[in-house]
Each structure stands twice: as C-alpha cells, then as structure tokens.
C-alpha cells in the first residue's frame, strides 16, 4: 500500500514540483531552481481570469449536482418503498456511465446544435423564432455536460448516507410535531451532511481538473485551468505546466481542507 502510494502518487507529484522550478526557453528546458514560472503565472492577468472562470464552472456545477443529486437520492431513499425497485432505479442512474465520457459529451452536439433536436423542438412549439445560439459551444453547454457527467458522484454518497439514516428518527421528529420541511432541515440534511461533503469533493476535484469537457462543449471558446495546463504541455512547456499544476493542486487542496473543517466525514468511511 505504502509502495503503491510512493510510486504512483508521491513520486509523480514530487517530479512535478521539481520540474516547476526548471528554466525554459521557447525550444528547450533545463534543470534549475528559479521562480520565473511561478512569477509569470501569479502575475499574469490571464491566470486570474482563467481561475475565476474555472471557479464559476465549479460553483454552478456543484450547485446543480447538489440540488439534483439530493433530490434524486431523497426520492430513491424515502419514496421508493420496495428494495427491487430501489435497486432498479439506482442502476438506471448509472446507465450514462456505461459509455465513455467523450461519447456522452459528443452525444450532446446533435441535441444542442443550431439545427439540433432542442432548437427544432422549441421552434416547432413556437416558443422561439430563431435557433438559440447559446445552447451549444457555450458556458451553458459546458455546465450542462459537467452536470450530466458528475451528478451520479453526488447521488451515490448522499443516497448511501440516507440509507443509513434510522427511519425511526424521522418518525420521532414527526411525533414531535415537525412538518415535512422541518424534518428535512432538522433531521435529514444534518445527518446526510457527510454524504453531501463526499459528493462535493468528487464534483469539485473533477470539475477543477477537467480540460476535455471544457474544450469540447465550449468549442474551444472557454478556458479553464486544466485547458491551460494541457495547452502548455502540447507546446512542450513542461516547467510552466508543472507550475500551473502545482498551483491548481494547492487550490483544490485548500478548497477541500475548508470543506472538511465543516464536516467530519470519518464516520461515513
């Protein structure tokens, strides 16, 4: 276990950190210990705007995944009474995962395009006169794809938390006069917080590190931190890419650290 962690986690991360201090020119790079990569990165206005964009994607995706994930998990856990139906519906939620990420993303294109199903349907219904331009190759499309890809990562841990919740607690709350909303806010949400946190960590880390969804769904028009790194790698700017990666890693670690301060997830593991 320790060996696996050393070889596949610690060494690669160390290598990235080391390379991030190397020096580079347009056509070469060599070992050194300079702060130029970081200096450039941290003073560039592009970095700030890319981070803001990425954080916006993360925030909206997280909120949508949370709302949808919590609702679906709640329905599965509390409204579906029979176990076979519960298992069946749960498997249904995993159906999108039977194909690869890329295929799922590409499948949005004929749906959202200028002459896609969505636009045609809306036009036929007379709701719009011209095709909506912002459906595809836009921030909307990026977020839609993210939510589609990652909601399940929110559903699973929340559903797990809800299934562990002792049903007599809900009855006890009702017995004490709690309304449906009061049961939700006083009993169910506090007790499913660990599941919400685990789901949030999945979603946040996945969105923060993503580069392919943003590229595909924005048609190359939106940037994200992941895309910046991937571009730098394709230009063989490894030191600069490493420095970006280190900063991204620290950002995500700080975000997760902040989340964990609020909720103790050890109970759930």
């Amino acid at each position: 276990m320790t060996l696996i962690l050393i070889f596949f986690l610690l060494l690669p991360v160390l290598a990235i950190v080391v390379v991030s201090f190397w020096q580079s020119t347009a056509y070469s790079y060599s070992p050194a210990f300079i702060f130029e990569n970081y200096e450039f990165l941290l003073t560039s206005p592009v970095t700030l705007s890319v981070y803001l964009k990425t954080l916006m994607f993360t925030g909206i995706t997280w909120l949508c995944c949370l709302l949808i994930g919590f609702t679906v998990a709640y329905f599965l856990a509390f409204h579906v009474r029979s176990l076979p139906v519960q298992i069946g519906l749960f498997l249904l939620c995993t159906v999108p995962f039977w194909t690869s990420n890329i295929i799922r993303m590409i499948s949005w294109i004929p749906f959202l395009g200028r002459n896609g199903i969505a636009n045609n349907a809306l036009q036929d219904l007379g709701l719009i006169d011209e095709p909506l331009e912002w459906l595809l190759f836009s921030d909307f499309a990026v977020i839609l794809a993210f939510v589609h890809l990652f909601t399940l990562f929110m559903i699973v841990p929340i559903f797990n938390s809800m299934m562990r919740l002792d049903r007599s607690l809900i009855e006890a709350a009702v017995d004490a006069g709690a309304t449906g909303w009061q049961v939700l806010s006083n009993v169910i949400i506090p007790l499913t917080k660990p599941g919400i946190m685990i789901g949030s960590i999945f979603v946040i880390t996945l969105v923060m590190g993503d580069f392919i969804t943003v590229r595909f769904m924005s048609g190359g028009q939106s940037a994200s931190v992941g895309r910046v790194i991937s571009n730098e790698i394709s230009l063989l700017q490894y030191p600069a890419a490493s420095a970006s990666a280190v900063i991204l890693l620290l950002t995500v670690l700080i975000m997760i650290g902040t989340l964990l301060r609020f909720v103790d997830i050890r109970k759930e593991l």
Partner: protein
Amino acid sequence: MTISLTLSNVTKHYGKNIVAVDDFSQAFAPGSYVCLLGPSGCGKTTTLRMIAGHESVSKGSIQIDGKDIASLAPAKRGTAMMFQNYALFPHLTVEENTAFSLKMRGLPKAERIKRANELLSLVDMTPYAKRFPEQLSGGQQQRVALARALISMPSVLLLDEPLSALDPFLRVRMRSELSKLQKELGITFVHVTHSQEEALALADHVVLMNNAVIEQAGAPEEIFNRPKTEFVARFMGGHNIIEMHGERFALRTDHTRLCRTNALLQACVGFVEYLGAKVEITVTNPDQADITLSISDKEFRQQPLAAGDAIGVTWAHQDLHKLE
C-alpha cells in the same frame, strides 16, 4: 387530569389478506398504566403505532377525552411516543433533543432550553445536558427519550418495548422508575412488552393479544389467576394445564402439591430446577401432559427428589380454574 383513552373496533389491514389488528375494543381509565402484552407479531406494536398516528387505522375509532383522533397528525393527538431504540437525534445534544418539539413549534431558544432542563431534572439527567446521545449509556439514553416525549405534555405516553434494550439489572430499576413517574404525572401510559413479568409488575390494566385479537384484558391479578384460555395460562406462565372429564383446567404451579397419600395423580420426576427461593419439579405421567410443581427450597430440602423418583401429586379442587 381525567383524560381517557378508548379504542373502538380498531382494525388494521395490510393489503387484502393480512390483518395485523382485528377489531380491538378497549377503554382505559384516566391515568392508568396499560400494558399491551403478547408474543411477537401479535399486533401489539401496530396497535400502539395506530394510537400514536404512525400507522393509519383501517377501521374503527380511537378517542382521547371523547374526541376521535384517528385522522389527526401525530403531534395533534395529545400523545407522545417513546421509541424502542429511543430514536434520539445523534447530531443534537441531550438538551436539544429534549427541546426538539418546542423548537418545531417555534419557541424562542432561551425558553425551550429552560423547559428542557426542567424535564431533564425530572429524569435526573441535568448533568448530561450538553452531551451527545452516543456518549450516554442505554439507561441514560432512555431517560432522555422519556424527557423528550414528556416535554410536549402529552395526555397519553406511548412506550414501545422501552425496557427491552437494557440489561436485566437496569431493566428492573427502570421499571420501578417508570411506575413512579407515571404515578407522579398522573397521565395514561401505554406500554408495549412481550414480557409477562414486566406487565404484571407495572400495569393497572393488561391487554394480552395473540394473532391480532385480544385474548384477555383486565387487571394483572385477574389475568394471572383467572386465565380464560389455554394460551393465556401458558403465556402468563406459572400454570399447569390439567385435563379432567374432557375439560381443561389451569392450575398454578405453586398450588400443585406433592403428597404421600391420597394422590390425585401418580407421577415420576422428570427433572428438577433449583431457582434459589423456590424449586421447580417437572413430573411426567401417562394420563396428563407434563406437570410442574413449584415448591419452596425449604420444603424441597426436607424431601429431596431426583429424576426418576415416583411421587404423588395433588391439588385443592377450588384452585382449578376452568378454561374455555
């Protein structure tokens, strides 16, 4: 405090064919300690849950203080329930758990904490007010659950097997505390249990259920001394079933005696169980089912018996109680 509880023809179906409670009618005097007794699956918990409002009533009515409450929400009935596993909220402190129903009603925090602490002092849990349920022992959790149920000042407290999760020593102690508390508060307690010993010790009124119907109801002495059916006699324990002239009689094991002469029955000792203050001797004979004699250990020491000894058994005719 003269609030009565009446159940009339209360019936519970699940689907078409399963009847959990069939035509349950019973009136409980105000301020009485009622035990719903019976083997598991007899419908006693379902009955309790129908009174609480956590289970709908298929047919019949439940009245508290003359008012039909069968269609009201649980919190509007004037009942409060104490759950079998106590169902304390793990994320709330003892104080917050106790004050939960006041919080739901929107009382200001200072007021509800004050009320909660009054209730906690009633059950001697004041020092633990800031703790979380997982930091408490089973008996302490039970006291908190009791305080939480009582804070809404119910006229009927419903207890679902409240003592079954405790160890035997604590069970006896909590039993006497429940009884004391009930007398102090003067409200009706409805207590579900499968232990006849618990029912006899606590209840003013025992309802013994079997297969969804009431087998017998009444004062504990009545149920124990005058069982109506063989089931009641066997469930309450301490009885032999004697068959004579095609009729069946219940006979208390401590009214069944050993004798040398004029024996009504000749029998052979099967086995002897020493129980401390008394000794139970089970005897076999060709005419009857096995009979148990309960005698004091003093009497046993005067005439020790071992498996295989031939003995005579007798009883007084007035101790025989005819079964339906």
